[in-house]
């Protein structure tokens, strides 16, 4: 219980730190959002509307910073995120984000989890058969794939499967504009077709890291006394491999998975940009292009929350799987 409480405390503290960074960056950096906003909305909005928009953004230059800060924190928690000052001028940010979120969750979430699971299984097999064919080839291959830039893998896949094969697989957007959205098999198939290349890009670049760490954990675990004990007891290899070695070797990988989500998000931004996939990463790119500060702030907050929530979930899973973490307190 103390373990869980401590992790919860860490969750709150990190969230607070991220929100605070988010609050202060625009205020310490050269070039104020106000100027950018004035330049962008020139002739489009009355000064009063501008003032109102800035207020909803939590930016009240006349009030003292402490009050601004508290207001901002409150707005972030209540979902009062203001309106976009980018290309979709005046649109509520909740709406913009709500449209993009499912696509990112579906594409990046599924591809990442698949890469993690596949990588862990391959790692277990490679670590179990030390010196086998698998173990002698795989580490080198995966060291290479894990160092490849996300966007470059995406470009290569587009070149091979889309440009050179005459549009065999679609290279941009989430679905074809000619297909009517809805729960029809036609639409679902089209969405899947569009997700293949970006999903594959994430999978290829992410899987290597999991194979390598899982293999190394497996090798360390196999040297433990309880494995030797299991062998002495005459347990089957299968049982030792899955229930003794893999289970224990998996624990550090699980917490590594949560920690790595920050990297996954960074890759996803580039992948969505390469494939023009209208998810949160693409949204962030557009927000940057249009100096849409409120949208940028909300997106950064959401990315942080996503990582933090998954860290918390993995902590709980670890506490449930590993009695030692509960005992330590």
């Amino acid at each position: 219980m103390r373990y869980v409480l401590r992790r919860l405390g860490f969750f709150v503290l990190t969230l607070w730190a991220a929100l605070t960074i988010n609050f202060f960056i625009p205020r310490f950096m050269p070039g104020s959002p106000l100027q950018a906003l004035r330049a962008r909305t020139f002739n489009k909005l009355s000064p009063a509307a501008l003032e109102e928009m800035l207020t909803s953004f939590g930016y009240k230059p006349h009030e003292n910073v402490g009050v601004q800060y508290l207001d901002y924190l409150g707005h972030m928690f209540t979902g009062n995120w203001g309106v976009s000052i980018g290309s979709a001028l005046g649109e509520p940010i909740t709406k913009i984000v709500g449209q993009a979120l499912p696509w990112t969750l579906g594409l990046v979430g599924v591809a990442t989890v698949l890469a993690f699971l596949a990588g862990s299984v391959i790692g277990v097999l490679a670590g179990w058969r030390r010196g086998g064919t698998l173990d002698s080839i795989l580490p080198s291959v995966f060291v290479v794939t894990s160092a490849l830039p996300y966007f470059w893998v995406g470009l290569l896949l587009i070149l091979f499967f889309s440009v050179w094969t005459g549009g065999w697989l679609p290279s941009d957007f989430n679905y074809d504009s000619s297909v009517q959205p809805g729960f029809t098999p036609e639409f679902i198939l089209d969405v899947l077709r569009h997700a293949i290349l970006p999903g594959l890009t994430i999978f290829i670049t992410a899987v290597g890291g999991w194979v390598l760490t899982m293999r190394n954990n497996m090798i360390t675990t196999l040297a433990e006394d309880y494995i030797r004990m299991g062998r002495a007891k005459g347990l089957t290899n299968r049982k030792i491999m899955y229930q003794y070695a893999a289970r224990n070797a998996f624990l550090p990988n699980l917490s590594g998975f949560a920690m790595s989500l920050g990297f996954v998000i960074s890759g996803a931004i580039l992948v969505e940009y390469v494939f023009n996939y209208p998810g949160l990463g693409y949204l962030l790119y557009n927000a940057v292009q249009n100096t849409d500060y409120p949208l940028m702030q909300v997106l950064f907050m959401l990315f942080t929350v996503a990582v933090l929530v998954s860290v918390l979930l993995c902590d709980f899973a670890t506490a449930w799987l590993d009695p030692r973490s509960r005992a330590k307190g």
Partner: protein
Amino acid sequence: MTALLTTSPSATAPPSPRRRGGGILRAVLRNRKALIGLVIFGVFTVLAAVPQLFTSVTEPNKLAFPPALPPSAEHWLGTTSLGQDIWAQLVYGTRQSLVIALVAGFFATVLSVLVGISAAYLGGLADDVFSMIINIFLIIPTFPLIIILATYAGKGTTTVVLVVLVVTGWSYGANQLRAQALSLRNRDFLESARVRGERRSYIILAEMLPTMTSLIVANFLGAALYSVLTAAGLQFLGLGDPNSISWGTMLYWSQNQQALQSGMPLWSIAPGLCVALLGVSFALLNYAFDEIGNPALRPVRRRRAAA
């Protein structure tokens, strides 16, 4: 220090530190992964140092040629749709990409050594505070933060990219170094140094740091890898200096001009390949160092498998 000075003039018996250095060199040469990584890195270093030896073009960004030429004897990789020689840009672009990787990697490593080791050595409240900071930086998704920082700070300067890379790239190494320093803290050789009455700075610099060399090197390689990929990603998104000569900038312009779709795949594939190769060389060296430092991970020799 004085002991070392007195022993080194006696040239008859080679001092032991030298032999140990030779051991590391031999281990690197014997490890195939390390060797490949070292060769790739060496080639890029030469390209970065003397680019003018490999191409006759002196101003690679000048629009000096007919646009969109296919590869030929004159233009090995063809020209861009703006009329620049792709090979020349690639050769000249090596320098900036390599320098960003090494400089950002170096400063990130220095920062992680400082924070990680002081946290572990000071202990107590200082350790709690430092490890909290490390953990927060570990978790906050850095790339979105980088994009936002680079936007606010004004797009377009390499210095901004460098600073941002260092600020976001140190935490992983600091975490690892802190863990190793903690495990060293109560070892006998440090205890004996304390009993001898050595200063704290001496203990950290002369006793602790040398034992952590391999981890520090590994962290440097990891930070350099991170910097190569992140800098290229930033420049690719157009957040670097669009007039600079680097692989990431080439990628930005090729994407900007739809190189893949308009029949000039080499324009975007070649710089991407260079980023990938440099990244791979750091990753291979890193992995090889891990194997050298931790013999349990080394590939098993064939004869054992045959037995």
